[in-house]
């Protein structure tokens, strides 16, 4: 089995376990449960097949949903984040992204942080809008998106610097 595929698989399983066993029962400040599995979309190889990436993300979301009894919220949110990823990549890294030998190594910290933040924002916006499913609670949705999104972003940044492989 090739190295990148194996790494992605291990990340998939570990992220699901960390999410459902630790972060789903965190209830930080009375109910903020960060969704750290969003970092999967950041870590997934950039040059892979987009359709497969969307399918994998969909199943990641669905698996998390199965554990947390939030049926299909995570699946839609993950799928949307995966679908939007090429656009976000182009937005954050500009023309550089089009080159064949593009990697995170020759990008700035700010660019990477923007990329991650946009992924988190899209994922959380879709997730909480559908969870509440009522636009009269618009402020509640925004509050949840920003509170949870901020904690998720901080944790994901920590994760990405803690577990960044030197070889990539």
């Amino acid at each position, binding site marked *: 089995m090739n190295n990148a595929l194996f790494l992605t698989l291990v990340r998939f399983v570990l992220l699901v376990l960390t999410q459902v066993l630790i972060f789903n029962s965190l209830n930080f400040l009375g109910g903020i449960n960060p969704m750290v599995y969003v970092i999967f979309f950041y870590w997934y190889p950039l040059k892979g097949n987009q359709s497969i990436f969307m399918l994998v993300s969909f199943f990641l979301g669905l698996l998390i*949903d199965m554990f947390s009894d939030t049926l299909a919220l995570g699946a839609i949110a993950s799928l949307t984040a995966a679908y939007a990823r090429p656009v976000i990549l182009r937005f954050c890294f500009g023309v550089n992204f089009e080159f064949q030998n593009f990697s995170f190594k020759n990008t700035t910290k700010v660019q990477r942080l923007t990329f991650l933040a946009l992924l988190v924002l899209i994922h959380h916006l879709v997730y909480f809008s559908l969870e509440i499913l009522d636009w009269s609670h618009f402020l509640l949705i925004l509050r949840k998106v920003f509170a949870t999104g901020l904690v998720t972003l901080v944790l994901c940044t920590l994760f990405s610097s803690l577990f960044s492989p030197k070889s990539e």
Partner: protein
Amino acid sequence: MQRIINFILRYRNAFLYGFLVLISLVMTVNSHSYHHSKFFNSSKWLSGSIYGWGADISGYFGLREENRKLVEENERLRMLLFNAPGDTLPPLDSIADYRVMAARLIKNSISSPRNYLTIDMGSKQGVEQDMGVITTNGILGIVENVSNNYATVQSVLNTKSNINAKIKNSEYFGSLIWDGRDHTTVQLIDIPRLVPLVVGDTIVTGGMSSIFPERIPIGTIKKYELNPSRTFYNIEVELFNDMANIRNVYLIESRDLNEIKTLEGRTTDE
């Protein structure tokens, strides 16, 4: 034809996205309107056993606290037993109709508008849908999906939850619901405005429910106000249970539940 195929191939990601979103939207809407999915829920073998392992490990850190709670409950029950029987106990026939089983909570959730919990007992141990679930302090929820060894519970902290409740020592009953905001308070509605209310009054389960026995504690009145039409009260009820910190629960099996359900089903059919 060739053009159509080319078109689809060119936009295959957009089509894939639309297709998968459609599937998941159907699932989401279904789970909002009725019982959540029978196939994708945390009572299943895989999620159940993983949560079980998790609870095995984290359970050790709360043993002292759990022991204290159980001893306190024993104390309370002993006191009931020794002092004036019949006065403080629910009527005898009400006891005889219910059977109690102990179970362990392996997954808790309080932050979503629709919270579901998972317990480590299933159909093999005699758990059935619509059994009541309580803790030493008060009510917790109602069993929703059951697998062989695990079951999911719809928490009172669920916007779909609707439980019959009344003010202690009176016969005025209303519906206990949750607005999805604060995990320490739930709402009691449909109490008529002529009822005298005092902040701090105890709210207990009412006798109109076939799921819970009468007079199981729920919480105390935190504040109350008349609803916009000025005919009923909206009451904020502070729960006795600390919903974030629960490990041991009791399941209540009502012997009459099936009979009442078939009877009610027959009545609404006709």
